[in-house]
């Protein structure tokens, strides 16, 4: 199997799905001739033509709305939102149309739409190129929110998302694009949606995360073993909505201690929901309060390096939370 970066895994998934199903097309800002600002769609317009890889006007509302309409009419659009920070103009389309479509039509209309969203900080992008706003969508029933942490999952989940008959928001962390490589099959495979993955087995404490911070959590887990002999079980949520509660609860039942890590800010982030589920359904299993490592509740991710470092979750912050929870 070839070693592949996260971004190459995404390009590979897009290409294979476009070959497999001619209803699949791509639309977004700069996705065509330029191949996307991060090159996720590099070469695809050359291969499939400008009718199937559409350079859209600079207008997120119509990127998503037109995709919803086309999806209702039988197409399988993959729309790109260049930065998660730019998605707000499409919120009406996403929350009022895509999310409600199946429900409001009593199942007679569906919307097989995949929205690729580039998110996340740690690259000095500042206020409008760094946000993690996954919670906006997690809180909107009717949407599936997916955020892979590895190249293998990125390819398999994106292919599964494109084949899914309901709207999927697919969050890709820009810091993962070229920072990790993994063996990824060249051919077709999918990774199941709505299923969390135990990325590292452990018996002493459970650490739950997704996306970029999942990689930080794995690094912290390795340090816990080498430095403290502690076995951390690391769960990758992969699909943030709807949540795979069973995988979480089974792990908590074994470890009795939980740390949740995410880059979204704290209040009503996924950590809040995970904590509530565990409190409701596994209260008796807990030996310590649930700890959260998150971004602070400030309006934006600042640009200056020390400010951004303060904002971002880190291996050190995760280690501190793990140690605190183990020592309780």
């Amino acid at each position: 199997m070839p070693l592949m970066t996260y971004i190459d895994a995404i390009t590979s998934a897009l290409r294979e799905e476009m070959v497999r199903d001619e209803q699949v097309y791509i639309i977004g800002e700069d996705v065509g001739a330029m191949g996307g600002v991060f090159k996720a769609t590099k070469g695809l317009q050359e291969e499939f033509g400008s009718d199937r890889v559409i350079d859209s006007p600079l207008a997120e509302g119509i990127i998503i709305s037109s995709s919803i309409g086309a999806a209702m009419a039988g197409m399988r659009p993959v729309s790109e939102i260049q930065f998660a920070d730019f998605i707000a103009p499409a919120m009406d389309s996403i929350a009022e149309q895509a999310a409600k479509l199946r429900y409001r039509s009593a199942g007679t209309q569906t919307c097989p739409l995949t929205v690729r969203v580039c998110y996340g900080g740690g690259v000095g992008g500042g206020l409008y190129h760094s946000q993690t706003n996954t919670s906006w969508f997690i809180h909107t029933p009717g949407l599936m929110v997916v955020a892979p942490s590895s190249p293998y999952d990125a390819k398999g989940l994106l292919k599964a998302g494109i084949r899914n008959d309901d709207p999927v928001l697919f969050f890709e962390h820009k810091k993962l694009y070229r920072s990790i490589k993994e063996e990824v099959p060249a051919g077709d495979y999918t990774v199941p949606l709505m299923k969390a993955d135990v990325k590292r087995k452990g018996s002493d404490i459970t650490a739950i995360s997704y996306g970029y911070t999942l990689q930080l959590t794995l690094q912290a887990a390795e340090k816990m073993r080498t430095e403290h002999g502690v076995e951390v079980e690391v769960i990758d949520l992969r699909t943030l909505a709807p949540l795979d509660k069973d995988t979480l609860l089974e792990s908590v039942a074994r470890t009795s201690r939980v740390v949740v890590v995410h880059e979204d800010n704290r209040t009503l982030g996924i950590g809040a929901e995970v904590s509530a589920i565990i409190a409701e359904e596994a209260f008796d299993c807990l030996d310590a309060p649930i700890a959260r490592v998150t971004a602070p509740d400030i309006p934006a991710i600042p640009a200056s390096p020390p400010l951004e470092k303060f904002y971002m979750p880190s291996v050190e912050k995760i280690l501190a939370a793990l140690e605190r929870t183990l020592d309780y």
Partner: protein
Amino acid sequence: MTRPPSIPSTDDERAPTFDSHAPLDEPTLRRLYSYMLKCRTVEERIRLLFRQGRFSGNYFAAVGQEATEVGATMDLLPGDTIAPSHRNFVTHIMKGTPLKLMFAHIFLRKDSPDQGRCAQAHCGYAPLNIITPASTIAAQLAIGTGVALANKMQQKTSVVVALSGEGSTSLGLWHESLNFAGVHRLPIVFILENNLWAESVPARLQSAVEDFSTKAPAYGIRGVTVDGNDVIAVYRVSQEAIRRARSGDGPTLIECKTYRWYGHSEIDPAKYRTVEELEYWKSRDPIAAMERYLQERGFWAESWKQELLADFDKEIDEAIEFAEKSPYPEPEEALDHVFSFSIRDRELHRRVWAPQISSVG
């Protein structure tokens, strides 16, 4: 005289050969009139039902605007899509949604197209390609634009007719839709029902332009302003725009200047308007105008109108009877059609919420 069928049927698969210069034939004129009369009869009955307290909710009548709704949407083909606004409920009649389903929707019953989920203003019908309107104004234009994109990509000749009021032109999605449709020359016709009032705000506070169709050139598309109370004019202009859209000649913006006789909804007394303004527009009643025209052409018999009304009333009575007999959805059906529920989640929701429902009866 031989009684014509209430509303003569069209041959749905006929080739789109509309000649915008030829005079309309008698059957077409009769159908235009019949549909307008039916739309008004249905809406006035819904308004009566509301005042009688027969259904909970609200209704947004387009009485006075029938020429626009009928002229713009008559003779669409089965594969064509209507993207209506919250005020275009009666365009269902034009596409062929059975009145029974429409009234089941008004009564929010199990037999409505969405099984009681959407409020009266938001009725879609997937089998006939009628998009569900949303109250986020202009959204339907953008969704319709996407359907038009799919039609083009799939090399279909189907078109989209998207309706909205003049208030919608102030929103970003209105601009984004016309712009995108223009760039890709999509098979869509934008019907702008300028009824002078967006709820309580007059058109002059929406835009500094007099004729909203003058916005069309900014998107590289054709724009036409037409008397929205002249059903023949609206029909001619719309058919021409539909023909062009169908043949790959791109979108058109048609501004229809018209007027709603009643308030924004049934709970709005519309005191922001003058009596004189209302009386002026009532004197321009599109249905009465068409009656006069049919008389001039020698196609009129008062008995025909009475027969039409009797037919419509009978059909409406039957639809209401059907709708009132249709059950309400079971409370727990609120949990249906949610893709994201696992069986476990659904059971959890049922256990948590169902006892609260039963305690309030």
